[in-house]
């Protein structure tokens, strides 16, 4: 059976203060914050960021990428193919979407754990609801990725039990920005029996008693049912959830990642997910987890480098507030044939180095700008190479969902210069010499629906301790 070889999470730095919702709408909206994906992020770009963390922590390349989300950017085409391209994976690596409902991520995870080969299992969601709704208030945006395969893992499966029950507690018609819910007490009553059954089965087949389990986490969009079951199980409070809210499809994985961050060798972790029945996944942390762990815990990083997102900005970014557009033409959609020809550059940020003098070009040219040498250039992946700001400006004229745009000229470590947008930063957050790293973003979604993906710079996030 396969084990978890590596994992990584991405929580966008944006935070919406729930009190801001309450003040704006004149209604109670609770306390604390939820995470907010920026105007240039979607479920696919969140997934890429989480997957980059997982792959950076362990140098194993997957033979398939599986992506789960309830908020896909595209239907009828595989969003995981974009993730595959952004990660610069081998063409022989398969890419599949597991979509539609939050439960798909648990299915993807357990399928990978019980299967052959090496899978990169990614889940991401951007949770929306009508203004003032419980979904908007309690939701969150995040992504999580697990690298699963044979070999010495960080955690392995002890048992898994799934119970499926057909009752309509929540639904969303494709294309809508919010889901609907039946009366809350119906869902709560409906979730309890399958949850109890799944947990019992998982513990029974593992021959384990509740007292032997170090960490229990409960996921699910039905907040009352989730809370009730968590209480009955004595589940561990999640520091990450306090900041993030409930990121739907990414929630089971995010809670598991948080548990793994602090687990000791031999610890048992039970992940219960409530969705159209219930799943109970029991895992055991291996000795490798403690010895491999060199990264800061999510619970710590989640509070660092956050940016406050005012409620009107949040509504604008999610398309809930139809604001006056700038008096500039809508951005032109990228052309699929041109994008396909340049996919290494566009999706994976692969630059070119002259084969004669080594000068880096972003992007590769037909002729070296330095020595004039003609011909194909050597591909140089620069997505994971940091750089420094040479100069910058603030552009208040160009089209953006979140003006002003901050433009930076970046010199990459080891050579190469690129003029790009600095994201996750305000005009006062940039100075010459600042350290930046690249991040995969959706620049805009054109009027014909095409998402324009490319890379931007962002201020360096916590750089992980190596080794």
């Amino acid at each position, binding site marked *: 059976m396969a084990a978890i070889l590596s994992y990584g999470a991405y929580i966008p730095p944006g935070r919406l203060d729930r009190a801001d919702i309450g003040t704006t709408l004149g209604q109670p909206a609770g306390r604390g914050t939820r995470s907010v994906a920026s105007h240039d992020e979607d479920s696919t770009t969140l997934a890429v960021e989480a997957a980059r963390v997982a792959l950076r922590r362990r140098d194993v390349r997957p033979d398939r990428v599986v992506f789960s989300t309830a908020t896909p950017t595209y239907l009828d085409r595989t969003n995981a193919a974009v993730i595959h391209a952004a990660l610069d994976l081998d063409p022989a690596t398969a890419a599949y979407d597991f979509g539609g409902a939050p439960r798909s991520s648990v299915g993807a995870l357990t399928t990978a754990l019980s299967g052959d080969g090496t899978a990169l299992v990614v889940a991401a969601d951007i949770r929306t609801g009508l203004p003032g709704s419980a979904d908007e208030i309690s939701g969150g945006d995040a992504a999580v990725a697990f690298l699963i395969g044979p070999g010495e893992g960080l955690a392995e499966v002890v048992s898994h039990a799934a119970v499926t029950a057909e009752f309509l507690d929540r639904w969303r018609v494709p294309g809508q920005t919010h889901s609907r819910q039946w009366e809350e007490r119906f869902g709560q009553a409906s979730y309890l029996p399958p949850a109890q059954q799944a947990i019992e089965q998982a513990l029974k087949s593992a021959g384990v008693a509740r007292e032997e389990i170090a960490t229990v986490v409960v996921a699910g969009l039905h907040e009352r049912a989730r809370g009730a079951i968590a209480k009955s199980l004595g589940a561990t409070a999640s520091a990450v959830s306090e900041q993030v809210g409930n990121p739907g499809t990414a929630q089971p994985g995010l809670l598991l990642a948080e548990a793994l961050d602090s687990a000791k060798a031999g610890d048992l972790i039970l992940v219960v997910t409530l969705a159209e029945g219930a799943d109970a996944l029991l895992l055991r942390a291996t000795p490798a987890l403690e010895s491999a762990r060199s990264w800061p815990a999510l619970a710590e990083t989640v509070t660092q480098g956050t940016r406050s997102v005012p409620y009107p900005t949040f509504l604008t970014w999610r398309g809930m507030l139809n604001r006056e557009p700038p008096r500039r033409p809508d*951005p032109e959609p990228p052309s699929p044939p041109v994008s396909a020809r340049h996919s290494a550059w566009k999706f994976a940020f692969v630059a070119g180095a002259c084969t004669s003098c080594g000068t880096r070009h972003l992007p590769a040219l037909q002729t070296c700008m330095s020595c004039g040498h003609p011909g194909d250039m050597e591909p140089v992946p620069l997505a994971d190479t940091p750089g420094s700001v040479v100069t910058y400006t603030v552009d*208040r004229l160009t089209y953006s969902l979140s003006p002003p745009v901050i433009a930076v000229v970046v010199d990459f470590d080891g050579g190469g210069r690129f003029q790009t947008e600095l994201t996750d930063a305000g005009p006062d957050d940039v100075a010459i010499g600042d350290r930046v790293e690249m991040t995969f973003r959706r620049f805009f979604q054109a009027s014909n629906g095409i998402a324009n993906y490319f890379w931007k710079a962002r201020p360096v996030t916590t750089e992980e301790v190596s080794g």
Partner: protein
Amino acid sequence: MASHGIRDRVAIIGMGCTEFGEHWDRGVDDMVANASYDALDSAGVAKDDIDAAWIGTLGSGASGLTLSRPLQLQYKPVTRVENYCATGSDSFRNACYAVASGAYDVVLAAGVEKLKDTGFSGLTVALPASDGTNTTLSAPALFSLLVPAYSKRYGVDPDQMKEVLTRIAWKNHHNGALNPRAQFRREVPKEAIACSPNIAGPLGVMDCSGVSDGSAAAVIVRAEDAHRYTDKPLYVKALALAAGPGTGPMNQDYDYTTFEEVTRSAQDAYQQAGVTDPAAEIAMAEVHDCFTPTELVLMEDLGFAERGMAWKEVLAGTFDLEGTLPVNPDGGLKAFGHPIGATGLRMLFECWLQLRREAGDRQIGSIDRGRKLGLTHNLGGSPGDCVSFVSIVGTELS
């Protein structure tokens, strides 16, 4: 291999230029016809005597039909030219070469742009299909990168830099106020310029050129034929064009304090015209002041000031109408406006007026002090990724 030029081989014998501005009542065809007929009338040439023509436009028309249709030219060779903001100048350049080659006797070079029909503020350009990775920064943002770079390299503090840029805009508005064809015909106080709404980096609205409609045109013949048409022809001394490799934005050696394309095209032009000390020989210059810092840097790239000294010359008034080397005496892009395809020819039109002493209230004094050459300059693109054009014209054969 060398750039030999066509010094004194062709001459301008007539020019026309519309008012620049928001011409809600005039279309591309109307403006092209106005400028072209004015140029033909000024030369005393009938439109059917034109042997060939060039029409420059960035995006207000396609093909030679943009000119042949409004003028009803009958089966003449007409070419549409596009070279970013050097479009009008390149229309002129190609026309000159055709005459110099002996292929034609009388040609028309025109330029036109209609920017105010798009419904957008600022310039919009239709670009070919792309992969969506090209810069989406606005032109003012790209040019604003010059400001901190220049400040840092030459130790000019930001407040002083602001004063320099403000003075450039103030000077061009002062000149434009004296020009009945200019889009903006009012002086603007320095205080109003300095506190105009911010657009990009340190640049405010008043650091940007006008967005306008307009057209300009010139009639060109061989130099030896010029006096058959006019007593005061303008001889073409130099035509230089430099398209850079376009790699400034990815070149770690580029520091945003100069346009190599301008330096190269200026050197070529001076060599063609036999100019050895431009700061001392040029009577006037029309330069591409798309944004105030552009004009500042151009003063050095064109050799009008030493490196790092242009800001002092600006403050000293060297380039004022009454200065030793008036720059943009017609108001420049800043006050005259910038209908892309017309701009290069509009610059030549000011040389036509000034060197022939027909510029009225804004007539420059430098020609009374023995200076005889006019220079025009365009820059198309953005810092590190542009084309540059320089021409030199004069009223006397060398």
